[in-house]
Structures are given as structure tokens and as C-alpha cells.
């Protein structure tokens, strides 16, 4: 029983073929696994190891380095709030605190503090599943997350891919 669905196995093999060495495909395949499953499980990493012709330990070694790869189940919405310096002096920490508190018991929403998102011109900023939102207050930020929560805004996957219709 393979981890990837049949269409995703086909995609995975196309991705591996882009590179002179299969191991290069670890990150794109990890993103693909997250698109499919909502996180990066051990079963997913085992199959990535098979597809990239390395050991599962090597895949885990690589994947554990990167913050976008979630090796534990998380919410369907990953809310990334920047608190680096420009956001620090324009209200980022207050937004983070409000969202963390508001969604503390909501299993669908994972709020995380992140480093500079390259949106300092519109600070304070956040991403929801890697969609940018800028010039926020605690209230507008919560409003945006709620719109994703109820489906009135369409969210990307937790790896930031557009959901295929």
C-alpha cells in the first residue's frame, strides 16, 4: 500500500526526473506529501526515500531541517505571523498573541511565529497557508483567518499549493 495516491505517484516520478540526481527531489516531494496529507508523516518519508533512492534516515535528516515541513499533524490552516524587526515595531507581536489566544483550542488552526516574510513594506504581515496578508491589526487578522475557517476565502494547502479542482 503506497503512501502517495496513484496520480501523485505519477507526479512524484515526474518531479524526480527533473533532477540529475534523485535525492534533489526530497523537498519537492515533501511538499507534495503535505499537499496530499496535510502533514509529513513517517510513512510519507519512507516512500520519498524509496522514490529518491536514499534511506529513510536521510530523508528524515533533510526534512527535519526545514520549518515548513510539519512532521506532526497540524491544523488545516497554518497561520504564520511575522515578529521580525519591522513587524516588531509595527504591532506583529500583539497580533501573534491575539491569534494564539483566540485559536488556542481550535484544532483546525495552527498559529506560529515566523521570521521575516519579505512583506515589510506592508508590515505587520502574516501568511495563511502561505498567502500574504499585510497592514494588519489583531482584529483584521482574526477576521481574515475566520474567513478561511468558514470557507468564504479559499485556502491553499499547508505547503502553499493551489488546491486542484
Amino acid at each position, binding site marked *: 500500500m503506497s503512501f502517495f495516491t496513484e496520480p501523485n505517484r505519477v507526479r512524484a516520478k515526474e518531479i524526480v526526473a527533473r533532477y540529475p540526481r534523485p535525492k534533489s527531489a526530497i523537498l519537492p516531494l515533501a511538499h507534495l506529501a503535505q499537499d496530499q496529507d496535510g502533514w509529513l508523516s513517517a510513512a510519507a518519508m519512507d516512500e520519498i526515500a524509496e522514490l529518491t533512492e536514499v534511506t529513510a534516515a536521510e530523508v528524515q535528516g*533533510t526534512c527535519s531541517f526545514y520549518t515548513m515541513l510539519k512532521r506532526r499533524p497540524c491544523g488545516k490552516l497554518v497561520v504564520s505571523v511575522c515578529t521580525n524587526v*519591522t513587524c516588531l515595531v509595527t504591532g506583529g507581536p500583539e497580533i501573534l498573541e491575539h491569534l494564539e489566544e483566540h485559536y488556542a483550542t481550535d484544532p483546525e488552526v495552527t498559529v506560529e511565529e515566523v521570521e*521575516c516574510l519579505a512583506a515589510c513594506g506592508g508590515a505587520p504581515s502574516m501568511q495563511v497557508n502561505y498567502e500574504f496578508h499585510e497592514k494588519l491589526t489583531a482584529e483584521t487578522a482574526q477576521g481574515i483567518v475566520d474567513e478561511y475557517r468558514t470557507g468564504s476565502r479559499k485556502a491553499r494547502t499547508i505547503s502553499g499549493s493551489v488546491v486542484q479542482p
Partner: protein
Amino acid sequence: MIDQELRIVTKRLHERPDDSWTIDGALASGAYETLRAVLAKGDPADVQEQVKASGLRGRGGANFATGQKWSFLPADLFPRYLVVNGDEGEPSTFKDRMLVERDPHQLIEGIIVSAFAIQCNKAFVYLRGEFALGYDRLTRAIDDARAKGFLGENILGSGFDLELVVHRGAGAYICGEETALIESLEGERGMPRLKPPFPAIAGLYAKPTVVNNVETLSTVPHIVKMGGAAYAEIGVNKSTGTRVVAISGHVKKPGNYEIEFGCTFRDVIYGFAGGIRDGHELKFFLPGGASFQWLTDRDEHLDAIYDIDFVQQNLGTTLGSGAVMVFDDSTDPLLVAWRLAKFYAHESCGKCTPCREGTGWIEKVLYRMSHGFGRPEDLDLLISVGAGISPNVATAPFTQTTLCPLGPSVVSPIASLDKYFREEIAERLSADAGARA
């Protein structure tokens, strides 16, 4: 006061705000015409000569001459790779994200022209993982460019082939360092390599590799079109051309401005960015991203010429990634230094001991200093720990005990605190200590 942009790489995205990223919008505003001309002429050495003559220096942060970087490739050694550094993560820098999201065809044209110049047939764009919209638009643009015959085999009948792959990162600042980027692209943890060998000799898959920044390559078609000598006329001294300067913080008009080298920091902050928000005065600013030393409201800083070498030789800092972060008199410099240290501690890859250990301890000390728990000797303690990572603290981050400049960069805020805020900090630390006694 200078406040007018000179738009070269940001021209299309401003002129066509609704469709600059589409193939139709790009073609209607001259995209790929330079590529056609270059392939029709069929002379890679000429493209290299134009880029050399232009004086173009890398826009990622190191300001190294692009033409010279290309010339380090060993002759007749193939395959070779062109890797595009789109892993923009330097705090306060947001220019490459704009160039990828809003003008991907300009970047693709730059990649093809540059790949032709260095005779490489496979190129990779390493794009920061968080740039989801940028990824959508860039991959779409590549598909459209391929459909028009600008990518793939026998491009426009010239006999030149190029495959272009977009590779998404997954959240690691260190992958913006070129050897860490190569490691990451090979499927490894993003840890910098010992140099030499430099990537030009043994880079991606141990093959000769050129790593260039997004803005650098986006500029190449314009240089080839106008001629290297004409481009070198723009700017000042050895800082030729324009720079997309990302201005943020306590200014009235934060944003990206394409600025001709040669104005002053006063023009950047008070001209382009409209000055400090009402009711406040400038306190200090970071002239080149988070990794380099700060400047203040002194006239000698504000009137300094926006010129890579002038700033480096006279002010002990650099223009780095082209980002200017501005802080007014409401800002606590210790809090900013602490948050920067927290960033470096989080992003340290852990390979070199001075950085792995030093960034963490510096963050802890700066935390207590900025949160009312400081001790009078703390600034000297920071300098002592910092010297373990960047031995000549006063010139940080330009000396290093580490493989890459990440660790030494945490010492830049410390050197800046020491230079400009020592008295303010000393008073505050003794007051905090007194309040606890």
C-alpha cells in the same frame, strides 16, 4: 532632494499593473526581444563582455562583480549549471519577491540570456518556499515561455537548449547562502560548505556552477539591450546602474523604489520614503538589511553617498541586500538588537560551533538587557562573546571564525550598540540593576 525613481527592472511591473506577469502582458512590452537579438547574433562571449563592461555587481548582498563571477568558470568543462538565488530571506528585504511575482518573464529572459552567455543547458531557480504566489506565477510563466519556444530544445531555431526547473525551498534563511543553497538543492540539510572549492569550480553536483540573485539576472537583458558601456554610465563610481531599495519601518511611504546609485541616505529616507512618520524623529536605520552595522541621524550618515564602496570604506557598513530599515525615536535599540539576535539564533544551521553556541547565548543576554533584567557589565559581555564569532567586533561582520557570514552577522547589532548607544545603555542597565537591588 532626489525622489524620482529610474525604473529599469521595475519598469514593466509599474507600467502594466494588471498583467505584467502574464505572457501577453510581457510580450506586449518587449519581453524576449533581447533574447531574440542575442540568439540571432549567436555570440556568447559578446554577452559576457557587455555584462563585464556594465560593471554590474550582484544584487543579493555581496556586491561581487557578475561578469567576473562568470569568468571563473573553467573553460571546456561541462555540464555546468546556472542557479538562481530566489531565497530572499534577509529581514527587511522584499524586492526579489516583487520581481518574481510581478515580472517573472523578465527574470526568465535574464536566465536564458545569461545561460547562453556561460553556455549552460540546465538552470535552477531556488525559490523561497513561502513565496506561494511567486511559485505559481513563475511556473506558469515558464510553461508559457516554453510554449512560445523560448525554453527547451533549439530555442528559436538557434541550436541552443535550456531546461529550467523551479525548486521550492522549505523555510530556512541559511539557504540564501550560495553553498547552503546548493546543498539544499541536492536534497541535503542547508549547511554551508567549506570554500574553496568555490561553486564556479565545484558547485551543484560538484560541477561548475554560477549562483546569481534574482535582481541581478533580471537586469541582464537591459544591460545587453542598451550595451554594457551605456549601463555603466548610470550610477556613480563603481556602483553602476540602479538598485531596487526596499524601505520599511517608521517612514511615511514604505515600499520598493528603484534608485540610481549616487543619491544620499537622506534622499532615500526623506525623499523616496517621504520621511519619518508625523510627530517623531529618526533615531537609527539599518542601511543594508539585518546583517550589517547600523547608521544614525548624524549628518555624516544621512549625507553619505548611496555608493557601495563609499559606504564600505567610510561608514564601516554596506548596502548589503539593498534594504533600508528605519526606526524613529520611539524605538528601543536593545529590543531591535534582541529580535535580530533571536533571528540568527533560530536560523543558525548548527554546523560551526561559534555560531551555533554564540547566537543562542547572545540572544539570551540581549533578552535580559531589553526586558529590564540587564546587568551593568552586559554590553562588554556581548562584545566578548561576539569576538568569538567575529574577532574584530568593530568591523563586524567582516571577520569570521565560521564557514559563512550568518554567525558574524549577529555581532553587527552589538558593534552598533557599542558605537552609538553605549551611554544610553549603560545608564539604563545601572538603573535596572538598581531597581532590582
